[in-house]
């Protein structure tokens, strides 16, 4: 109880400090919460950016496609590498090594290849989401107790049955964790891609507002985008809970 009150108090203090700092400083640079609200209202009423729904929808679509591709490829590669010991031991570390490279280095190449449109954002979101999913599937498959598989086989279970009845439940926790991380990263990938250079989507709107020093609109757009990010994570956690209950 005390903790909840303190958390709220902290939030209030931060907002108050932001308000004071915003009012004291250059109105172009620092926008206090009181100035954000009218901008937010204008934004949501589609007065400042009538193209908002279209941009939002585009960003959502980019995320959707990027993630779907990442899941498909991640599951496929992860299982292939996990099931085949040799391939897993050979290529697994190579994938892990690529994780040591900041993903943004691939982006200029993607922009060169795919252009400034949605494709490069989808490609980047895919790249970011692919790795955690693959590595999670790989780890999950490795941690399945071989004894369980042996027992199932001894009772006459075929490969498919073994997969669905033994392997999947054993690794569900790791798998779902990886899927959730993958979603978060795909979302970040698409947003980063948009902000670093795009003509459409939320990132483009943000750049537009920032470029014209419309800081109030900029903050409002950021808030809407944040809502998208948080929303996707909440969705993922709900699905995670559903998957847990289903497996128990």
């Amino acid at each position: 109880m005390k903790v909840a009150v303190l958390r709220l108090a902290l939030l209030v203090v931060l907002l108050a400090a932001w308000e004071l700092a915003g009012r004291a400083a250059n109105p172009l640079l620092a926008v206090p919460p009181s100035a954000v609200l009218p901008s937010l209202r204008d934004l949501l009423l589609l007065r400042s950016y009538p193209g908002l729904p279209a941009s939002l929808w585009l960003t959502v679509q980019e995320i959707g496609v990027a993630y779907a591709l990442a899941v498909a490829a991640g599951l496929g590669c992860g299982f292939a590498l996990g099931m085949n010991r040799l391939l897993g031991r050979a290529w697994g570390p190579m994938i892990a090594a690529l994780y040591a490279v900041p993903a943004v280095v691939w982006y200029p190449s993607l922009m060169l290849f795919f252009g400034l449109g949605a494709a490069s954002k989808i490609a980047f979101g895919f790249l970011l989401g692919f790795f955690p999913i693959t590595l999670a599937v790989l780890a999950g498959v490795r941690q399945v107790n071989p004894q369980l598989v042996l027992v199932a086989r001894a009772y006459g279970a075929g490969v498919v049955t073994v997969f669905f009845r033994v392997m999947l439940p054993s690794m569900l926790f790791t798998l779902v964790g990886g899927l959730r991380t993958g979603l978060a990263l795909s979302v970040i990938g698409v947003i980063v891609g948009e902000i670093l250079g795009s003509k459409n989507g939320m990132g483009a709107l943000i750049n537009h507002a920032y470029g014209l020093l419309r800081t109030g609109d900029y903050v409002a757009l950021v808030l809407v985008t944040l809502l998208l990010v948080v929303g996707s994570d909440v969705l993922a956690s709900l699905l995670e809970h559903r998957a847990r209950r289903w497996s128990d």
Partner: protein
Amino acid sequence: MRRIALALQLATVLAGLALWELAARAGWVDPLFIPAPSAVARALAAISGPALAGLGDTLAKTAAAYVLSVVLGVSAGLAVGSVRLLRDVLSPYVIALYGMPKILVLPWIVLLLGYGTAPAVFYGTLHGLFPILVLVTGAVRDVDRTLVTVARSLGATPWQLYWKVLLPAIVPSVLAGMRLGIVFCLLGVLVVEMFAGVRGMGYMMGSLANGFQAPELFAATALVSATSIAIVLGLDQLNERLSRWRG
């Protein structure tokens, strides 16, 4: 098994490069977008001067951001981790900030700090700070209570408790955080260089992309990737050296 795996890795890389070279030369892929490895190698030699200068610039900013991240991350982690109330109150905020795409505030940071080095170091620090903070906080929280009791029974002062019990106990987590942190710092610096830079590899790669100079871009990308992998491998070695006691 291990040697076969290594051989397979080598074979994969060589076969991949060979296939790529073949594909480029045979015209299966447009060399404008996907240049042959040989072209990339030539380009690397050609741009080596400016590329190394750019790399040096990026690494300098990364180093500055890294030092700040480690210092801030470890001290904040120690403070938040050891005071239960602080930890409980702040944890949702920290988790939220950790997961938030920080690029959303980048335009505003550039607005405040301008172009060039300052926003890059600031943003790099912001990126690298969080994994270190989270890991150190967790480690402090999870320190074996018995060790603290033993030290107290032997008359340890609070200062001695921090220095001789807490700090050594959290070293593995600090090292893990530092390993994550370097990649995050480099990432942050590169992003800023691409968004609002005038120097450095990020800026260079962005310009090369705009100029459709594919071989040079691939060369630069390879250079940064190799550097990053080398740094992480180096840190891993250091980690191993310092963790003999863990087994």
